[in-house]
């Protein structure tokens, strides 16, 4: 029996199909990311699981129990809202303690766990402040602490790290992953950052205008995207002309292309522009095959200047053809 099961779940606002026929099985202890462009229905899906949006059709089952229309306050989930929804009249510590208070955890234990949760999100020094005295990223971390402190069986996170700097975000991703592994918390996280979805999830659910278009491990989503849209949403891609007259379009990821001295590869290309990304160089090239994007590791060797002619090469095993008719 799956831990959480969404069965043909839909939410329609008049003619708008915010969520359309979504089915998903989540196992106990799994970390799932909902990935998709803005407005594709991620928040609506999460809110239906949380019980704040009433499903138009379909069922939600949590540990075998049908909770489709159960009141939100009987579900016992930990939720981070996209807008944080902190209690503005309570201090940071009181915000985090609220859930424990509702669970009737005694005072000493409460204080201990609040302190622990605040330390986890690096906010122990701000326990006495009110939300309006915090920065956006600090508020977001209070929301996160407030949700994890109650140790819920299911965590619903709506873009919980969107406002954090890269370093803090990585630290929080690590903490979320640790909690999930140590406590076995099942986690569903909404994000539109593909790198975040890839780095923390067991499986990625890609959504597009209210529908699920792919459910796979991060590696599979990246390497074998179900459509060109997904392929472009989760990374950059180059189109190669078909091998045969009416064969399928072929795709290759920028990092799978290598640059060689002119004349030594499969096709010559001219460097149009280059971007320094720190650990990598990103090149835009013009070639007889069409425009190409190439990513090369910054291994210390000098970069190719714009105007230089180089050669493109690749391993045929890294070429992908997309399923017929997918766009």
């Amino acid at each position, binding site marked *: 029996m799956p831990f959480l099961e969404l069965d043909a779940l839909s939410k329609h606002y008049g003619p708008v199909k915010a969520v359309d026929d979504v089915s998903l099985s989540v196992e106990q202890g799994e970390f799932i990311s909902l990935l998709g462009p803005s407005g594709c229905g991620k928040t609506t899906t999460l809110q239906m699981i949380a019980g704040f949006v009433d499903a138009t059709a379909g069922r939600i089952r949590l540990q075998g129990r049908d909770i489709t229309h159960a009141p939100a*306050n009987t579900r016992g989930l930990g939720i981070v809202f996209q807008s944080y929804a*902190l*209690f503005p009249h309570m201090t940071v510590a009181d915000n985090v303690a609220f859930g424990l208070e509702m669970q009737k955890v005694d005072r000493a234990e409460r204080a201990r766990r609040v302190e622990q949760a605040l330390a986890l999100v690096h906010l122990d020094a701000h326990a006495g402040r009110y939300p309006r005295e915090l920065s956006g990223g600090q508020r977001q971390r209070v929301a996160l602490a407030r949700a994890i402190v109650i140790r819920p069986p299911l965590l619903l996170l709506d873009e919980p790290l969107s406002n954090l700097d890269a370093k803090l975000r990585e630290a929080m991703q690590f903490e979320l992953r640790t909690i999930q592994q140590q406590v076995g918390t099942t986690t569903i996280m909404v994000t539109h950052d593909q790198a975040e979805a890839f780095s923390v999830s067991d499986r990625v659910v890609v959504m597009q205008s209210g529908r699920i278009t792919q459910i796979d491990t991060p590696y599979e989503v990246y390497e074998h995207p179900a459509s060109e849209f997904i392929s472009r949403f989760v990374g950059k891609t180059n189109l190669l002309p078909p091998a045969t007259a009416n064969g399928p379009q072929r795709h290759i990821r920028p990092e799978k292309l290598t640059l060689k001295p002119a004349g030594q590869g499969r096709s010559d290309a001219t460097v149009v522009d280059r971007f320094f990304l720190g650990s990598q160089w990103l090149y835009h090239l013009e070639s007889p095959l069409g425009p190409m994007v190439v990513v090369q590791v910054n291994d210390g060797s000098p970069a190719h200047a714009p105007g230089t002619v180089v050669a493109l090469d690749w391993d045929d095993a890294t070429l992908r053809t997309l399923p017929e008719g997918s766009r």
Partner: protein
Amino acid sequence: MSDTSTPRARSAVWLTLPSLLLFTVVLLTPLSLTLLLSFNEYDAARGATGGFTFSHYAAIVSDGYYLEIFLRTLRIGLITTFLCVLIGVPEAYILSRMAAPWRSVFLMIVLTPLLVSVVVRTFGWSMLLGIEGPVNMLFQALGIGKTRMLYTEGAVITALVHVMLPFMVIPVWTALQKLDPQVEQAALSFGASRLTAIVRVVLPQIMPGILSGGLIVFGLAASSFAIPGLLGGRRLKMVATTVYDQYLHELNWPMGAAIAVILLIANLIVMLTCHRVVERQYRRRLG
């Protein structure tokens, strides 16, 4: 900030001048005249005779008759405010939860008492509560028997609550509009019951709205005139009706002025105290 030499500050002075003038002419001038009048000597045969005396204030403070009137006014003001909070806050909350077409309809209904002239409205109440009125007929039909309701504090308070409710509902409604509905949902998500969510999360956030509504209601109720005048009758006097009587029946203008000044000061003290509390309690949290 108070530097008047900058062009900005100077234009501010010019721009506030008209309202400042209006304020001085229509408010400060009559107020200071009243204040001066309250220190005038009074002679039963000749009226206010000028001069300077504290005797009216001394009389008010030492005479149990006036003390009773002040206490009654305070009591009626407090009970009215309390009832308005009790009815108005849930009313505003329910209003804010209503679906779109009904919400505006019911908001209009809440506001109707303000659209009817106070005299008409009060006569309506006196007919309703009169000894032969519909309420008494109902009482009789139910076997309770006729009850004298006119000229009681109950009648005055009922009519006051009726007209003051909008002044309670509107600030609370405004405060509720500013709330993020997801904050209440967050409370529910932690397992709070609906009631707990309201008491612990919604109420504290709309407290400034409740307090300002309460201040308006108290101020208006404590200085109300038409309603106690018509429904309280001659015996059940409140401060404002006493002032009126002093001016127009006793013709003791200085005494009337002195009572009016004390009412003003008492009202000011209540308002400022409440304001201070609001500032201290909610400034930091809710901004």
